[in-house]
């Protein structure tokens, strides 16, 4: 059954105009269909979709604390099994980058190790947006956030690297790990579909532009996410059963655009244009990733 024409996520939610998170959610639900239980870690998505006493969700949905979405989902998986109703129900988790790469990581790692049949989706807006744009381990090198301020003594913004969460999840040897980008919609949909067809723990890392925290015009949301992949900063790939030697890069840019094209339209990277050697460093990191993985694909 195809549910693409149905909307399981209702309008009236309070996401900022141009937020990418609801685009991700509506497409995941169009693929997963009505037999889905959604588990949602605290964060922007949970807050903007459930302004009490209303909800945007047209499916069973449970709010969890910031750190335990994967543990709650594991409990749902076990409970459904215990009452003999586990068949053909999708359990889908949505967690932010803070709720996944940082504070929720232990529960996620446990879910993966125990082998629960769950699709975990991290929507990555690269900071703690709901509480005011604080850095996370998923904030990229060089980005301004409210806790990586830019000034004369700190020209760079964030000085540390982005945690490679999808690679870390692949190292758990779970059946399916992928990166995804809603600007590449056919690839995005195919990955959700594929993940849901596989039993066991699945992890999808999707880029999720935040007009407020990334400081770009709301109309540019899709355009900027597209550039993330066209520059090679956010490569699209999948790895099954932790076999890095068989990584499949699902979008191969003919020629990768220079990273400046992605950085330029975003206010959070504006200061880097006074530090050209830092931009070169970012380009080098991107080139290194591709040199390492492109040959395998």
């Amino acid at each position, binding site marked *: 059954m195809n549910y693409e024409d149905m909307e399981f996520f209702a*309008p009236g939610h309070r996401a900022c105009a141009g937020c990418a998170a609801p685009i991700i959610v509506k497409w995941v639900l169009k693929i997963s269909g009505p037999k889905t239980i959604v588990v949602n870690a605290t964060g922007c998505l949970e807050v903007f979709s459930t*302004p009490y006493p209303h909800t945007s969700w047209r499916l069973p949905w449970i709010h969890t604390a910031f750190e335990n979405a994967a543990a709650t989902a594991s409990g749902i998986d076990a409970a459904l099994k215990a009452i003999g109703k586990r068949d053909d129900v999708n359990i889908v988790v949505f967690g932010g980058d803070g709720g996944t790469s940082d504070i929720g990581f232990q529960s996620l790692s446990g879910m993966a190790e125990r082998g629960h049949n769950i699709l975990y989706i991290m929507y990555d807006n690269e900071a703690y947006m709901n509480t005011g744009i604080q850095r996370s381990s998923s904030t990229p090198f060089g980005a301004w956030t409210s806790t990586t301020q830019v000034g004369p003594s700190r020209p760079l913004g964030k000085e540390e690297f982005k945690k490679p969460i999808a690679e870390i999840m692949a190292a758990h040897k779970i059946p399916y790990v992928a990166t995804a980008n809603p600007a590449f919609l056919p690839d995005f949909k195919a990955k959700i579909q594929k993940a849901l067809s596989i039993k066991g723990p699945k992890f999808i890392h999707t880029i999720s532009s935040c007009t407020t925290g990334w400081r770009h015009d*709301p*109309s540019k949301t*899709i355009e900027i996410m597209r550039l993330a992949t066209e520059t090679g900063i956010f490569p699209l790939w999948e790895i099954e059963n932790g076999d890095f030697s068989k990584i499949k890069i699902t979008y191969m840019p003919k020629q990768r655009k220079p990273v400046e094209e992605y950085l330029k339209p975003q206010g959070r990277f504006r200061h880097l244009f006074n530090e050209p050697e830092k931009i070169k460093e970012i380009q080098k990191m991107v080139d290194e990733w591709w040199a390492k993985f492109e040959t395998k694909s």
Partner: protein
Amino acid sequence: MKISRGATITEPGSTSLEETGSWRTFRPVIRYEKCIRCMICWNFCPEPAIEKKEGENYPVANPKLIKMPVPVINYNFCKGCGICVNECPTKAIDFIREEK
């Protein structure tokens, strides 16, 4: 407001009772005579505030497309982000400042 036990919410999709159209400062307007009915705007609207409707009664860019569905903007919910305007491949969506 009486708080339900466990703060449960039992009415699915009820944010649609609260309209967000007043957030808009610019209004997207589809010029159907330029629209090729590709539904890219519908794909990417974050609200979602674009509905898929039967297309027979709308102006059409090419008579071959008349049986295809059309995008129709629901201004009760459109926040005026402009994603549809930016992504439309034929520049069929105007973006007009809202005036009182």
